[in-house]
């Protein structure tokens, strides 16, 4: 069963949720006890792999004990995010769903179109809906891809920041 789970995780490009696994495995008598096997995988991993809870599901990644080695292989680290990009992303992540004018209000400067474009291309933000006010402004939110990139199980796992609660009324 452990191997069957590994096969599923290894072949999946996206984190697999418990519900998804249940839909795949529950009716199969050969897969009885998959939940126990899942807990086992979560606890101890398999070889160089560890199973982590991310973006509402589970995903295999290389155990961090190999990081020093992997850094040597993956020499081209992704370019660090600019301050403006990080701030825009932070506003959307912490205040979502949020309209563009509201993002501008939080940061005190106009929202840069290239930054929004870049965040969309990375698959981190999306239009989650429209506010039913004049102009029907788009409501921006983060995607599961955002959670996956920052290794967050859910939005609740975003680091807590002092002072945010007081400003919820804005």
């Amino acid at each position, binding site marked *: 069963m452990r191997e069957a789970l590994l096969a599923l*995780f*290894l*072949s*999946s*490009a996206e984190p697999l949720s418990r519900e998804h696994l249940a839909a795949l495995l529950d009716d199969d008598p050969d897969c009885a006890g998959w939940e126990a096997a899942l807990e086992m995988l979560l606890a101890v991993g398999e070889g160089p*792999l560890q199973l982590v809870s991310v973006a509402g599901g589970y*995903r*295999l*990644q*290389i155990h*961090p004990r190999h*990081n020093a080695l*992997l850094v040597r292989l*993956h020499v081209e*680290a*992704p370019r660090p*995010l600019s*301050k*403006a990009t*990080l*701030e825009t*992303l*932070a*506003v959307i*992540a*912490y205040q979502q769903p949020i309209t563009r004018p509201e993002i501008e*209000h*939080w*940061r*005190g*400067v106009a929202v840069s179109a290239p930054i929004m474009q870049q965040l969309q291309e990375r698959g981190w933000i999306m239009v989650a809906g429209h506010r039913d006010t004049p102009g029907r402004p788009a409501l921006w939110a983060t995607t599961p891809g955002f959670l*996956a*990139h*920052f*290794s*967050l199980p859910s939005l609740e796992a*975003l*680091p*807590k*920041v*002092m*002072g*945010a609660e*007081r*400003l919820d009324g*804005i």
Partner: protein
Amino acid sequence: MQVHGQPLEGLPDGLFIPPDALELLLESFSGPLELLLWLIRRNRMDIRDIPVAEVTRQYLHYLHEARRRNLELAAEYLLMAAWLAEIKARMLLPVPPAAEDEDFDPRLELARRLEALATVQSQAEALHTLPQAGRDFWTIYPAPHPDLPLAPPLVALTDIVNAWQALLLRPARKPPPAHTLTNPRMGLRQRMVELLLYCRREPRPWFLNELLPPMADRLALAVSLLAILELLRQEALALVEDEEGVWQVAVTGVDGLGGI
């Protein structure tokens, strides 16, 4: 020394700006609000109780410096200066009776916006501390699947029959030439080596038609001939003449053709 009932920990850093730092400094701000927040933090002021006159003075000082050095500043910076002046002016006026509740403070909106920016900054910092894929951890990536294959074209059986018949009706083609074109320069070199080895098998002169490959096409013949000529030029082979006056090719240093 006390300020607002709090002991002053140290003097404000003052207004000294290193000569080249101003441009870099202003470039690093994404707007006037950030410059203002930076000034307030630098002076260790309280966002909720901003000494507007002092902050405005310092803010304007930066603007003047920027203008003196011909730095282009966005109009928003001037707008912020105007707002600061307005706040200060309103603080000097008596509180209008309509807004006479405790919260009234012309600085409130500014404080709110500064706090919002401060929050965003710490949230951005918090995001920055999170591990990021490809930098701090690596996931297992299955190879991406290519797009779905195109739908096969609609082909009737008669189309295949027709195609086959058309093939059968074609005139028979000549068999392709036996040689394969490779790097011709290397082909020549290889032929030279082969010829040398061939000639060394027996210590005797060789007739030209013994050395040229039988049943060869023109290219192979040409390469062989060229190889022989090149070997002759390099004096790895020599031309000899037998009794009947026929030229033959021999490996140099081979004697056995007495007297020639």
